[in-house]
């Protein structure tokens, strides 16, 4: 199953957790012929082979197309197992924020798949991860301390930078704050990038009735809100120990420091 023979178009929504990935997925899901898959372990088999073992990255680099085809087929089989019908022209949106740590794997398995990357002020992101309880895994365990959350954020952003430099990672970046400030413009950019038309129905993303399975679900259902913008400032004193390590990313993504 080489990529051109894939059963549907595929788009990934990535970004660090609490960066606005759920909102982006819900916007795309308002369009017809879009199947949204949130937080599903669709890459589990490939992760177990190419990521978890110490020689995983070397295996990934050396894998033949025939070998990769097996993992692509497993991915699509898992999509089908979730009851997703795949008629011609359907767009499957895979929205799992934690898949950002699997970016090299995604780029290798699905080099033609467009990627949307959610950005938000790193300080709000890190504080948001620290304050929420996620289903436990090796990554969410890092969120049990503010320092752990900040470290994982920095490590993950460094991985994405390395992928830009070495693997040609060129996503569509959508800043959560811009989306909140000018929803129509940013959602139009998003839909255009995904090859989808845009109309007024996109504004009603929060009334779609879609089941929301991420920790952002309750907020998304209330619609667009700027309540989370700059929330870290009320905790600036408690955040002080991690602000220096976040500073490079605050600068890199163009947020004012201080």
């Amino acid at each position, binding site marked *: 199953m080489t990529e051109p023979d894939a059963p549907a178009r595929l788009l990934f929504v990535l970004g660090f957790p609490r960066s606005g990935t759920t909102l982006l997925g819900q916007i795309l899901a308002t369009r017809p012929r879009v199947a949204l898959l949130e937080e599903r372990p669709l890459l589990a088999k490939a992760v177990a082979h190419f990521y978890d073992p110490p020689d995983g990255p070397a295996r990934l680099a050396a894998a033949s197309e025939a070998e990769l085809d097996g993992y692509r087929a497993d991915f699509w089989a898992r999509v089908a197992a979730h009851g997703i019908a795949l008629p011609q022209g359907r767009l499957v949106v895979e929205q799992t924020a934690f898949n950002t740590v699997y970016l090299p794997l995604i780029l290798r398995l699905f080099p033609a798949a467009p990627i949307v990357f959610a950005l938000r002020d790193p300080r709000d992101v890190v504080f948001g991860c620290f304050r929420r309880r996620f289903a436990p895994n*090796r990554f969410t365990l890092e969120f049990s301390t503010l320092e752990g959350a900040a470290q994982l954020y920095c490590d993950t952003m460094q991985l994405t930078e390395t992928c830009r430099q070495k693997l040609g990672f060129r996503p569509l970046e959508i800043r959560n704050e811009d989306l909140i400030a000018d929803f129509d413009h940013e959602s139009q950019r998003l839909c255009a990038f995904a090859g989808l038309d845009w109309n007024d129905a996109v504004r009603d993303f929060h009334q779609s009735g879609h*089941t929301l399975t991420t920790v952002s679900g309750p907020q998304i259902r209330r619609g667009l809100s700027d309540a989370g913008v700059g929330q870290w400032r009320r905790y600036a004193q408690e955040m002080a120990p991690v602000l220096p390590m976040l500073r490079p990313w605050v600068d890199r993504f163009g947020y004012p420091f201080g």
Partner: protein
Amino acid sequence: MQDFHGQGAASSQSSQPQDAVSLARQADSLNALGHHRRALRAASAALAVAPDMAPAWFQAGLAQQMLNHPEEAVGCYLEALRREPQMTAAHARLANIHALQGRYREARAFAQHALALAPGDAGAVMALARADLGECRLDDAEPRLLWLADQDDPMLKSIALGFLGDLRDAQGRTGEAFAAYRNAGEVSRASLPSPRESGSAQVRRITRAIESLTAQAWGAPLQ
């Protein structure tokens, strides 16, 4: 929270074919071990033999819920309750799913059913606290969260402390909110085994590997 072995489960099993009972117990064990996909298969197999087996419906619901399929889980729990209306755990789990989906009226109704059957059921109290927070009824949420944060179950305690942080945040008591978040993280961390390789360590290992790639070593063109 009461699950498979709770009240009513044994009575409904007594009239079921033995292989279905065995499969449902297998589903129970697999769910407890975190093998939810296999648990779902075992529960489905039990239901193929004994479609009226309430505990098997419950285990199927639990597996669906853990697999992040909340609406499928709702269907299974309702099937369980049709056959065994006194199953407290199914009421409590339905209450929590509805609360998480913002359906607070339904959440409260199922939670009240659960509490009528088992006063003090922690799952039902959690659902009510979630609904309270969702509807900004902070004064109602506070005693429930304080009670939940005092329970022994670390998962429940951690979630309750996190919500208590949100409550303090909404009250503008940020110092107490931060302390509650920190306590929630500590409880959660202490109750879970450390992975052999932490998340950050894995990401750094992968990054180093990508940084050291040469043009020949990657199957796709390098920049």
